[in-house]
């Protein structure tokens, strides 16, 4: 119950942001919400099940292109977003069936290939997808401010839905089984966990919201091209965010998204030329000093400060 209240309060506070009236701020907040979705999604497969997936970028790009292609045919906006999520999920279930028997590094490499494969596929179909020239998306017939708010609230809603899904999954049989798989997959099998089905479910969960996020992103920026929506950073950043916030936790991914993007914004503004190096240093420092993420580090720190009983 406390988790639900926390989610509601955070969502309500974030929803007040447009009152600030700054479009720069709103744009940044939309990006944060988008990455919160990506990080939360990765947490299902990477955090709960312990499978280091790099397929996030693939689902994102697939969602973006699904929506763009449907909009080009004149489909309604929300329908195209929903279908983007559906296509990403079905794709994840199929790919998952092929690569989820691999473990550790082998799985990571296989999942990394998925985005590259899709990128080449879309590059190779210029008649339908525009190939390397990319695709333009229709402009919404509303004012600039209304549009900025519309996309902000859409991303926020998606972030809340993905967090709510995480809360449900963490507490039910699926989340329990995934934690067992993460700790010891062979023992989980022997205890009756259908590991294959559970991993496929986690992989699909890691795709559905990412597919929708890709679709919203495409409508938001109005122009997509393969290197943009299949960017490997779309797979790497969510991982760093989850590690930063707390692996396998509910609010860790969103917290990680806020911190990393805020930091990135500061570094990018102040150290334009060394921005990539600065990010690299953060990641190394993170692994060295906060291996369990901020949330669990804070938790241990506070429980240590409590008087011994």
């Amino acid at each position, binding site marked *: 119950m406390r988790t639900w209240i926390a989610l509601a309060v955070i969502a309500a506070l974030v929803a007040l942001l447009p009152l600030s009236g700054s479009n720069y701020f709103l744009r940044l907040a939309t990006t944060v919400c988008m990455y919160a979705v990506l990080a939360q999604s990765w947490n299902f497969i990477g955090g709960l099940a312990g499978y280091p997936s790099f397929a996030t970028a693939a689902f994102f790009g697939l969602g973006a292109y699904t929506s763009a292609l449907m909009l080009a045919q004149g489909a309604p906006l929300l329908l195209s977003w929903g279908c983007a999520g559906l296509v990403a999920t079905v794709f994840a279930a199929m790919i998952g069936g092929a690569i989820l028997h691999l473990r550790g590094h082998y799985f990571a490499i296989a999942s990394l290939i998925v985005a590259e494969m899709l990128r080449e596929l879309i590059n190779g179909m210029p008649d339908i997808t525009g190939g390397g020239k990319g695709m333009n998306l229709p402009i919404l017939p509303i004012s600039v401010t209304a549009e900025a708010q519309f996309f902000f609230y859409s991303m926020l809603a998606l972030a809340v839905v993905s967090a709510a899904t995480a809360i449900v999954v963490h*507490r*039910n*049989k699926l989340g*329990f*089984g995934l*934690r*067992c798989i993460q*700790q*010891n997959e*062979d*023992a*989980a*099998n*022997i*205890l*009756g*966990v*259908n*590991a294959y089905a559970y991993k496929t479910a986690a992989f699909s969960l890691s795709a559905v919201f990412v597919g929708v996020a890709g679709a919203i992103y495409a409508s938001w920026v109005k122009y997509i091209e393969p290197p943009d929506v299949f960017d490997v950073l779309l797979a790497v950043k969510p991982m760093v965010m989850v590690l930063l916030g707390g692996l396998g936790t509910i609010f860790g991914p969103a917290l990680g998204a806020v911190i990393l993007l805020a930091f990135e914004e500061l570094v990018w503004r102040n150290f334009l030329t060394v921005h990539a190096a600065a990010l690299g240093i953060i990641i190394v420092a993170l692994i060295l000093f906060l291996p369990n993420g901020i949330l669990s580090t804070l938790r241990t720190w506070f429980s240590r400060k409590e008087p011994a009983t």
Partner: protein
Amino acid sequence: MNALLTLDNVSRAFGGLNAVDGVSFAVDRGEIIGLIGPNGAGKTTLINIITGVHPATSGRVHFEDSEITRARPYQIARLGLARTFQIVQPFPRMTVVDNVAAGALFCGHAGSVREAQAIAREHLAFTGLGDVADRPAASLTLARRKRLELAKGLAMRPRLLMLDEVNAGLNQAEVDDALAIIRKIAEQGVTIIVIEHLMKVVVSISHRLLVLHHGQLIAQGAPRDVLNDPRVIEAYLGAKYAAKRGASH
């Protein structure tokens, strides 16, 4: 009435090595079977065949009327075949109670995580782990980890429980405790196969012994008879000793 578990000419090869070679036997309901044999005889491989971890390369395994030779480990587990591991396999960073709850949740027909945890606590009380229920499994001593394996197996509501060296590495007092628990489990009607090196333990607990040597079943029967079987003595102590002992009889 059919046997509970039937193995029919079962073999398992790893490359050119026949770890288990043409083994056939049946286990009846309510029996306690002792599975013995020198190191490398194929005892654990046999358990791995039955539980689907390393399916048989030839032969058939039946549990009651269903063939489970090629079934997946989780399917076999859900039929009511539970096992413990010689090298303990806990979920290290989960609490002891959650380790056991997993068995109840995925095999023992618990409806929810909370219900599974409640059932797990009963099994922990039964196996004497109640006081460490909320500690991470990794923090337990070896004796208690072995006990945890047992509790996990019990939470699966097994009909056949296979215990792979649950007493190895324990001191005498710990072995006695474990034996008392195993006897209590058997009294509840669970059929048990025990793999064990401690001969005294096997003899005191088993109704029947099966002896494996180089992957083959070389003897089976009542414990006293089996231990006096020259082939068994030869397998354990060598041909010379067996011959000397045979001559002195």
